[in-house]
């Protein structure tokens, strides 16, 4: 699968995208988060509090119970915001 990271998630992990092959028992976004979190300090920081994150699978917003597959494009990012305009 292809993983994409945006904003502070990207900064904490230190890259904007990567290919990743989780073990076959990873079937949902939440399971993927738990696997990624164990990969190192940047990942741990980025995924420590999933409530601060949003996820899109193949460019559609999904909940953390959504299924993930080997060919998916999965993006993690903070909630989008207002700000200046």
């Amino acid at each position, binding site marked *: 699968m292809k993983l994409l990271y945006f904003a502070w998630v990207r900064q904490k992990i230190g890259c904007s995208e990567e290919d990743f092959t989780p073990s076959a028992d990873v079937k949902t976004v939440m399971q993927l988060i738990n696997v990624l979190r164990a990969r190192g300090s940047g990942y741990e920081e980025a995924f420590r509090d999933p409530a601060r994150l949003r996820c899109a699978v193949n460019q559609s917003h999904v909940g953390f119970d959504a299924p993930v597959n080997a060919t998916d494009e999965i993006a993690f990012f903070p909630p*989008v*915001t207002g*700000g200046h*305009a």
Partner: protein
Amino acid sequence: MSSVRIQSEDFDPGAEMAALKNGQNEAGAVVSFVGLVRGDDGLNAMTLEHYAKFALREITDHVEQAKTRWPLLDVRVVHRTGRLTPGERIVFVGVSSAHRQAAFEAASFLMDYLKTRAPFWKLEERAGEERWVEERARDDESVKRWH
């Protein structure tokens, strides 16, 4: 008709308005909005990051929603990304319609969406410090009025 663009370069609001189609002279109203980077609270710059495929799909989807909801002849949206400084143009929304109420409402609906829900993340620079803009409850309120 509609056009959605995401780009780092500036745009010409006059050219965007002129490009709005009016059908067979059916348009009685053109409403446009230009958002600028506001330089209050000592803001030095703002960098917009986006998820290109996702943003284009989401914005296009909301333009289609607006066209279903109001009788619009044309819609044009331009959203900039990258590092912008106060005073710079950041977003354009233009709509044409037979009557002004539809044009005003559709432009407002699209701006509320773009401001609060479109997948752009904003990094603000102030006094040499960088900070990601966090979610605001008030933004959610401005979107709720359309539901």
